[in-house]
């Protein structure tokens, strides 16, 4: 018979068919095929053969093993594997603890980062209606680049609510600084005016009182913190507080309700919540006008309505806004869902929600993955090498009838067992050490060992176990189970020392370590650079006092300036270090965002700003009316070659540049420096009186000023700023960043070191006989060191060559996005990383090398 049935069909039959039935089934099909070949067309016979094969594909014919005995056997074997796993952990305490500890550190880090990330991603999720709440932010064209602003026209919200039936409610948020008085105590506070719907729209937990308190104009809601601050042990509900606003309007309010402590994943925190109707009574200018920008506008869509239904109408509102305020033109309105607000708040100017830059989060996730990767490679390497001691066991198992699958299962079980221990240790480390440490390092956030959905954390841990277990356990199991029984027993299996794979693994591990270390050092260098950065002025011995209005200013100034310790004094409307408001400047067809300070003459001397060109402001009428001193950034952004005498329009007055000062930091160093202009100030509008004195006497002067203040304005808090302290928050944050980076570097080094140590100790162990023979033949200790070190130096060098540039490129991309004015990368991070790795290498190698050198040939070779 020349014709054969289709091979693939037969193969399929053999694959699925239970071996017990295979022969009879195959026989019958073949018999039928042969018969059909005689009286039918071969093609039809083949088709019928295929048909038969498929018809036999039935449950009863399919290969499966569900016999009771085999199940019991599996369980027994599994118990045996577990037992052996435990025994092996105890038998090799060193390698097991390196494995477990290394993995645990990485797992601890991964869990902490997960918790941290989860917290940021679940921000504001507790607001029940959050999916329907949107903040209406808007883009404003600033000199070609669009900035996203939180501030929106105060009339936008009501207009939208009136025009769109799809909107359920609207709430505006208006911040005002205020002075709160209770009895004889006065405090500076930030009050926030909101529409009464704010409370029903958001789901802030209410501790006591009437949640609808804001419906009554005379009632306010305060946070728990404020309740404790003002009313310590009393019941705050029903108590009175008086508020004095910046324009001296005085109002009394009754506490209507107290909010409970804010949930940990809350990004919007207000102390005093007042009904917005009061704000319109306060006689601030233009508050009922499209020109006025309120701090935030939220809308809540009706159930089932999408925000898309109102998007089309935005154009119309923008046109209205443009008509009334040509100085500050909204380019477009951009609704942001509440759940995403804190994630976007880093790019949202004046956001009411707090939230970090995503770069930090991404960097931490990448680093966690790196550390996990390193730990997995560690594990892989050590597992493979430590199995070299167990080759005979494997061979014997094979002889006794174990198939390869069973050996894979055995090693997987053992590896998973170790991973499981690592998970427990790692979770404990995270719970007791790392998470609380993060909490301390980042005081703005309450980081605790929890996730928004507790199930997530459990799932994450299980996933982590599976991931780590499979990644780190798969290779060793497959590799080890492959060995041939006979070569093992003959002792011919070459293993360990010449294993290219374990070298590649080690190289990869070093590569990750070097990348992490170089990256962290670059980041640390930037942070240190930022911390040491010149402020652009000299803050020592400078102290400023906030005054509310002309009268206070004059009185305080008279009390103070005659004090002999005061060298210089000046006044200004805003203070360097407390943020300076941004205004928009027309320059040709460009709009430029400029920070504006108004100051009196001695300002430059008192703050010791460094004049680069021209002169400071003087008493001359010209200087006072139209003179401007600008910073270098200002000059650069306008592209002036020779700035002195150049003019620009601001506030309908032509200003002439009379001087240029060096750039100085006026706010957090994380933000870049904007163009700044300093204009003359009429002393009657001063808000800060700044004095400069001998630093040694500043404390005494502070006391003196405080007493003077009590005479001048007993109803206002004494708000004094030491210029040297203004950036304390920034420095603390910067220091935390440096600490976190150093910790990561440390972990990376420890992991790399553990990996090397584990591998090396096995390697030396396996070569002790070789060393003995070499020693007998007269090898110097140096030669032995060279043999041990040689193979690792190359691995190290190659991984450094690849890792260092990659790490620095990656990190610089991040640095550029976070730091406004990054420092060029120096050679130091590379040198430090190399030295660090070399030092670890030497320390880890040294112990093992000593073992190799001190080997006593007589003892080791005696047995052969």
């Amino acid at each position, binding site marked *: 018979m020349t014709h054969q049935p289709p091979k693939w069909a037969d193969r399929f039959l053999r694959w699925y068919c239970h071996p017990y*039935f295979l*022969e*009879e*089934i*195959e*026989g*019958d*099909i*073949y*018999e*039928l095929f*042969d018969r059909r070949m005689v009286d039918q067309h071969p093609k039809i016979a083949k088709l019928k053969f295929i*048909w*038969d094969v498929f*018809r*036999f594909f*039935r449950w*009863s*014919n399919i290969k499966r093993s569900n016999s009771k005995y085999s199940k019991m056997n599996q369980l027994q074997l599994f118990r045996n594997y577990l037992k052996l796993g435990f025994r092996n952990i105890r038998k090799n305490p060193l390698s097991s603890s390196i494995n477990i500890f290394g993995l645990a550190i990485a797992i601890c880090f991964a869990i902490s980062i997960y918790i941290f990330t989860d917290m940021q991603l679940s921000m504001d999720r507790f607001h029940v209606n959050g999916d329907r709440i949107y903040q209406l932010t808007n883009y404003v064209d600033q000199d070609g680049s669009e900035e996203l602003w939180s501030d929106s026209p105060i009339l936008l919200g009501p207009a939208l609510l009136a025009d769109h039936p799809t909107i359920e409610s609207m709430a505006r948020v208006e911040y005002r600084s205020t002075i709160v008085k209770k009895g004889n105590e006065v405090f500076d506070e930030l009050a926030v005016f909101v529409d009464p719907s704010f409370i029903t729209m958001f789901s802030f937990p209410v501790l006591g009182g009437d949640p609808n308190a804001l419906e009554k104009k005379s009632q306010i809601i305060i946070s728990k913190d404020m309740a404790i601050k003002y009313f310590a042990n009393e019941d705050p509900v029903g108590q009175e507080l008086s508020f004095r606003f910046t324009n001296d309007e005085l109002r009394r309010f009754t506490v209507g309700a107290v909010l409970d402590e804010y949930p940990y994943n809350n990004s919007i925190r207000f102390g005093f919540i007042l009904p917005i109707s009061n704000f319109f009574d306060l006689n601030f200018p233009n508050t009922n006008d499209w020109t006025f920008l309120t701090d935030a506008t939220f809308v809540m869509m009706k159930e089932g309505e999408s925000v898309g239904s109102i998007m089309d109408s935005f154009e119309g509102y923008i046109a209205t806004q443009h008509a009334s305020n040509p100085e500050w033109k909204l380019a477009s309105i951009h609704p942001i869902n509440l759940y995403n607000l804190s994630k976007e708040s880093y790019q949202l100017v004046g956001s009411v929600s707090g939230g970090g830059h995503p770069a930090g989060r991404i960097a931490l996730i990448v680093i966690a993955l790196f550390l996990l990767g390193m730990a997995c490679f560690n594990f892989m390497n050590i597992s493979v090498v430590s199995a070299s001691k167990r080759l005979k066991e494997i061979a014997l198992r094979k002889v006794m009838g174990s198939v390869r699958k069973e050996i894979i299962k055995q090693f997987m079980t053992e590896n998973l067992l170790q991973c499981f221990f690592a998970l427990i240790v790692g979770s404990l480390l995270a719970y007791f050490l790392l998470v609380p440490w993060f909490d301390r390092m980042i005081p703005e956030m309450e980081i605790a060992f929890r996730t928004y959905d507790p199930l997530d954390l459990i799932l994450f841990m299980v996933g982590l176990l599976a991931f780590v277990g499979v990644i780190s356990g798969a290779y060793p199991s497959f590799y080890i189970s492959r060995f041939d029984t006979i070569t093992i027993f003959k002792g011919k299996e070459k293993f360990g020392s010449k294993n290219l794979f374990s070298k590649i693994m080690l190289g990869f591990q070093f590569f990750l370590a070097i990348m992490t270390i170089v990256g962290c050092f670059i980041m640390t260098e930037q942070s240190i650079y930022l911390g040491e950065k010149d402020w652009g002025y000299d803050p020592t011995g400078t102290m400023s006092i906030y005054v509310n209005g002309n009268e206070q200013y004059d009185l305080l100034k008279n009390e103070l300036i005659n004090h002999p310790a005061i060298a210089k004094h000046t006044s200004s409307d805003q203070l360097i270090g407390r943020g300076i408001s941004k205004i928009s400047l027309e320059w040709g067809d460009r709009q430029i965002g400029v920070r504006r300070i108004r100051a009196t003459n001695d300002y430059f001397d008192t703050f010791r700003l460094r004049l680069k060109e021209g002169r400071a402001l003087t008493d001359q009428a010209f200087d006072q009316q139209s003179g401007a001193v600008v910073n270098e950034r200002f000059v650069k952004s306008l592209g002036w070659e020779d700035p002195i005498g150049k003019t620009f329009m601001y506030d309908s007055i032509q200003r002439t540049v009379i001087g240029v000062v060096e750039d100085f930091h006026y706010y957090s160093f994380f933000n870049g420096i904007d163009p700044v202009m300093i204009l003359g100030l009429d002393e009657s509008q001063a808000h800060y009186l700044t004095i400069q004195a001998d630093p040694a006497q500043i404390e005494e002067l502070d006391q003196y000023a405080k007493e003077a203040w009590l005479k001048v304005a007993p109803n206002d808090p004494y708000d004094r700023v030491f210029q040297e302290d203004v950036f304390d928050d920034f420095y603390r944050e910067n220091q935390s960043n440096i600490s976190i980076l150093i910790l990561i570097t440390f972990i990376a080094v420890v992991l790399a070191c553990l990996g090397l140590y584990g591998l090396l100790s096995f390697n030396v162990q396996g070569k002790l006989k070789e060393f003995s023979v070499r020693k007998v033949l007269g090898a110097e200790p140096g030669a032995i060191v060279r043999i041990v070190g040689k193979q690792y130096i190359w691995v190290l060098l190659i991984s450094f060559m690849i890792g260092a540039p990659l790490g620095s490129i990656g990190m610089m991309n991040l640095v550029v996005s976070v730091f406004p004015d990054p420092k060029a990368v120096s050679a130091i991070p590379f040198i430090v990383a190399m030295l660090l790795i070399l030092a670890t290498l030497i320390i880890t190698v040294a112990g093992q090398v000593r073992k190799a050198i001190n080997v006593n040939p007589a003892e080791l070779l005696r047995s052969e």
Partner: protein
Amino acid sequence: MKGTHLGELEELVLLTVGSLFDEAYGVAVMDEVKATTGRDMNISAIHAVLRRLEEKGLLKSRMGGSTNERGGRRKRLFTLTKVGKLALDESISIRKSLYDRIPNITYQFSI
């Protein structure tokens, strides 16, 4: 009850196996069924029925010797067990007794 009930196809196959005596294997049974009743059945269906009957204890099987046909693959040869024979007897007798009552009934309806 599954254990004792004989289906129509099962009964047919059981009878065929009995009639083929020692030569009853898959293809032979299929051919015999085709020849006597004209029913075209797929070989896999025959196998399924044979196996079910064996599980019920009505048939027993052994592997035949290997021959040159079928590429040297052995046949599984089925024979009736005592229980199988009894089951056939019982089913025939039930049929017989039922059949015996037929004429009366047809008479009543024949007008």
